[in-house]
């Protein structure tokens, strides 16, 4: 077990290093000269040289990388030329919003997917299973920007429920009730996509598990169906579910931008879009770095959970 975790950890550090090199290099691939962006097109060569020295751009690229890396390790992602605020502080305000949104959506998705998958798997191709499978497939084919628009149309506009429409976001700290109300529709929208994935993955694994001999043996021990489902079938069926959840949640970290942008929720996705639109390269670089590391970390955590849930994985 310990060896498994150490091996994964080494891999993790390697991946993060590759990401850091990638995002450092990203800024050098961009067209245009930072001096032109900052000083404008009419800047004199002397001023440009001073700026280059200030920014450290006159040093060799390897040295630039280490300076940059050192800053990042100290939590300094640079200062945006556009907004003239620290990139790290911008991310620090945006990231918790995504975390909250993801937590809410995942609670909804799992709370719906697990019991429904169990019901479905009990009688495969039964009435309920057919309805749920067809329904989830339909949901899968509706993109999130359609779902959120429909939800806003019905819930905020037709039903007139306050604080659910666009631009109603307030932070968790200032008013948590309004905050939850404003995140309800986006969380639900993100939950729909997650639910469909989790439901389908878990359902098919449960159906396979329930045909295993150890389930018959559990029945022959006189256990109730509920206990068999939760204690015997769920755990061995949840490996693919957890793997899917890791990938999916990582994707939501930046992938929630559509609903964030449509509802004006200032999360990472929203900030990324505005950063790209205003050519705020340092901000984009910072977000890309944070999101990439976040995705890797989330998957690392889920790999670890999987190895606890299914002890066969660390052994084989």
């Amino acid at each position: 077990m310990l060896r498994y975790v150490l091996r994964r950890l080494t891999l993790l550090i390697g991946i993060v290093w590759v990401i850091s090199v990638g995002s450092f290099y990203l800024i050098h691939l961009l067209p245009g000269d930072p001096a032109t962006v900052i000083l404008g097109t009419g800047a004199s060569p002397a001023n440009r040289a001073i700026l280059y020295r200030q920014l450290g751009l006159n040093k060799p690229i390897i040295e630039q990388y280490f300076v940059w890396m050192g800053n990042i390790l100290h939590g300094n992602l640079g200062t945006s030329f556009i907004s003239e605020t620290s990139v790290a502080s911008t991310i620090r305000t945006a990231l918790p919003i995504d975390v909250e949104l993801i937590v809410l959506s995942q609670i909804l998705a799992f709370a719906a997917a697990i019991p429904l998958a169990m019901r479905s798997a009990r009688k495969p191709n039964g009435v309920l299973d057919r309805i749920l499978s067809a329904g989830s497939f339909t949901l899968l084919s509706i993109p999130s920007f359609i779902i959120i628009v429909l939800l806003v149309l019905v819930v905020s506009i037709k039903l007139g429920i306050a604080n659910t429409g666009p631009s109603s976001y307030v932070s968790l700290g200032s008013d948590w009730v309004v905050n939850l109300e404003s995140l309800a529709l986006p969380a639900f929208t993100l939950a729909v996509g997650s639910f469909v994935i989790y439901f389908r993955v878990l359902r098919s694994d449960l159906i396979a598990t329930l045909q295993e001999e150890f389930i018959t043996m559990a029945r022959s021990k006189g256990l109730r169906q509920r206990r068999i489902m939760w204690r015997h079938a769920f755990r061995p069926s949840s490996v693919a579910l957890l793997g899917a959840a890791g990938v999916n949640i990582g994707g939501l970290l930046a992938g929630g931008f559509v609903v964030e942008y449509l509802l004006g929720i200032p999360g990472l996705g929203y900030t990324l879009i505005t950063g790209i639109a205003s050519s705020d390269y340092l901000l984009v670089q910072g977000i890309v770095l944070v999101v990439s590391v976040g995705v890797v970390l989330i998957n690392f955590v889920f790999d670890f959970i999987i190895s606890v849930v299914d002890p066969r994985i660390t052994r084989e």
Partner: protein
Amino acid sequence: MSTQLLVVDDLHTTFRTAAGLVAAVGGVSFDLATNETVGIVGESGSGKTVLARTIMGLQPRSNVEVRGSVLLDGHQVVGASEREMRERWATDVSMVFQDPMTSLNPVMRIGRQIDETLRVRLGMDKRAARARAIELLAMVGMPSAEHRYRAYPTQLSGGMRQRVVIATALACSPKLLIADEPTTGLDVTIQAQILNLLDDLKEQLHMSVILITHDLGVVATRTSRIIVMYAGRIVEMGATRDVFFRHRMPYTRALLESSPKVSNPSHTRLRVIPGRPPNLSTLTSGCAFAPRCSSASERCHQERPSLEPAEEPGHVFACWHPLAATELHEAPR
């Protein structure tokens, strides 16, 4: 009879499949006394496992039709709901499954797999169940049982896993233990250990045992009676001695001849039964063994023989052309 723990009467189990009806068990009747061990033998596909699961009421409910009667300790199993059977499994009847590689939950510690039945069925508290589970593990010969209590199935060998399966089956002291080919997946040396263990436990716990196998060697010394099944029916049944030495049904002889014997000279070719077991969805009105039987006549193909008594008490066989009883004082080569 009140001494009979199990009375099976004209039991049919029919599966509704896409290919039509499959009569896996077609009219089986036998009984089993308290503290008796009976062996059920037959080739793969002869309906042994389905019979065992039907007796236990463990057959899935959908697409299966069960007719006839199974009286277990005076209570009817056929038609009983899962809820009713749940009250009887583990305490009245339990099963040792065939393959210990697949019958234990791979992601659950073995101790918990044993003590959950104690807690659910006998209402033991956590501590008592744990103590009893370790006791059971020790009883089935698990070395350092206390330590192994926390092991996962994948950390144990096949033989050790089968001991866990047996310990689980015995946890609630069942009156009837059905062992469905309990040694098929194991090494030969382990097979004998497991069978001896079952034998000892049966004496110790005063259980009745149904021992299902395709290997006559397994049942020879461990059963009082043997039931020979073919294509879902009993074709011969009698005291173990009589079935071995005075069998009348050609299929029984074929089964006996197909198992190797120490007394054979080296490099003796094993006799095999020609052909293969019949497709249970296309059974004819005749004797199911007729297509593979050397002494089959026209009548065998047309008309199914019913079980007729032989000379010895309790010995019955179903054959139009039985082997002569007098020739068979010795086991065939």
